[in-house]
């Protein structure tokens, strides 16, 4: 037990130190690397908190997809000319006041953490009690896709809205065209080698993570992130063309998840107790079908978000 506490204290100190370094380091590229390390360490913290589902999401998103996104952004923003800044950096006095104020906020929160007591309000027993009705064994998946399905549906819509927002930033004339990912035609042999070897394994891993999500930690989002990473790798290596954003199959893949979710939800009004309710006999197959559809949509959405707005007019 004491060894466990020592590991926890070391881990917590490391996460905080990594966060501080990300803020204080001069070089933006180094800050991004620090942030990726922070995301991976935070995933370990979630493992220590028995929240393996969250840990997988944090590692896939905080460490993985956000990392690629940020590295591309550093490349675009800090190459050559002076980096974009709004206003001069604040002077030492402002910094000192800000540091004091932020320390006060942190201290207040720490006081709350140390002060909480008594049994917490919890829905865990309720979730555990109704879990058998869904046919699932992973309570987190149960909450995400059955008990709080509306949240998850809206979350998928948020992803789509963000992608539409990103696409709408395309330069005039490039709408409907192709985003640029990597350096077209100039990918190194090493990258091509990796992109040939890794995706077969990664696709199996992604589908496995989705499939075990019903009964063990894993699920649509984590599996979708792995699949997205494989596609991004193939596109960066130039092995798979970056699709023009106007392609009908791309649009269909983006919306099939939310649409399937919505269709099952509306059907619930007629064949079950209400919107987004499942008929008990078919709960598990329906949930798995929704998960498969949203995994595909998530994978395509994440990859297109990383690719960014289209830059080239859409030649066929």
């Amino acid at each position, binding site marked *: 037990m004491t060894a466990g506490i020592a590991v926890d204290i070391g881990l917590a100190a490391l996460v905080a130190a990594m*966060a501080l370094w990300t803020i204080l380091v001069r070089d933006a590229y180094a800050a991004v690397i620090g942030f990726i390390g922070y995301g991976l360490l935070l995933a370990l*913290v979630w493992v220590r908190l028995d929240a393996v589902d*969250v840990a997988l999401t944090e590692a896939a998103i905080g460490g993985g997809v956000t990392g690629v996104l940020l590295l591309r952004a550093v490349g675009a923003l800090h190459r050559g000319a002076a980096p974009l800044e709004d206003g001069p950096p604040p002077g030492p006095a402002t910094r000192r006041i800000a540091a004091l104020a932020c320390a006060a906020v942190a201290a207040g929160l720490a006081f709350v953490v140390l002060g*909480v007591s008594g*049994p917490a309000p919890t829905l865990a027993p309720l979730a555990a009690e109704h879990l058998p009705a869904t046919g699932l064994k992973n309570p987190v998946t149960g909450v995400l896709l059955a008990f709080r399905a509306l949240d998850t549906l809206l979350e998928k819509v948020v992803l789509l809205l963000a992608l539409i927002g990103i696409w709408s930033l395309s330069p005039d004339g490039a709408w409907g065209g192709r985003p640029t990912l990597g350096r077209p035609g100039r990918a190194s042999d090493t990258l091509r080698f990796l992109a040939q070897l890794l995706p077969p394994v990664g696709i199996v891993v992604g589908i496995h993570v989705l499939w075990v999500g019903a009964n063990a930690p894993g699920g649509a989002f984590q599996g979708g992130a792995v699949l997205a990473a494989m596609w991004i790798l193939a596109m960066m290596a130039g092995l798979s063309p970056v699709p023009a954003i106007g392609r009908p199959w791309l649009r269909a893949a983006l919306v099939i998840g939310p649409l399937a979710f919505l269709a099952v939800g509306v059907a619930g009004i007629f064949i079950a107790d209400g919107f987004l309710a499942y008929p008990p006999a078919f709960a598990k197959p329906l949930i798995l079908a929704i998960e498969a559809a949203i995994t595909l949509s998530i994978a395509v959405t994440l990859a297109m*978000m990383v690719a960014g707005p289209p830059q080239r007019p859409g030649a066929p």
Partner: protein
Amino acid sequence: MTMTVFGLCGAALVGIGLYGLIVQAQPLRRILAFNLLGGGVFLLFGVIARRGAVEGLGSDPVPQAMVITGIVVAFSATALAISLVVRLKETGRGDDEGSA
């Protein structure tokens, strides 16, 4: 004990992220700071909610599901913000209009 350690860590992360959000001048660094802050908030939420863990379940699934949703939404916001900043730089208007 584990809870307290990570709770304090979450509180520290919120403070650090907030500081970065205030003192950084580059938009990309602010986005990073915002994500650090978000990570701290999720951690605090997870720690405080974990008091509700019952026998048989390692930890309360409801807050876990909410944190997963939160991570996804934070990612969406980050991706959109980065695209905005990159576009701002491309159009070359970031330097002149200050707080554009």
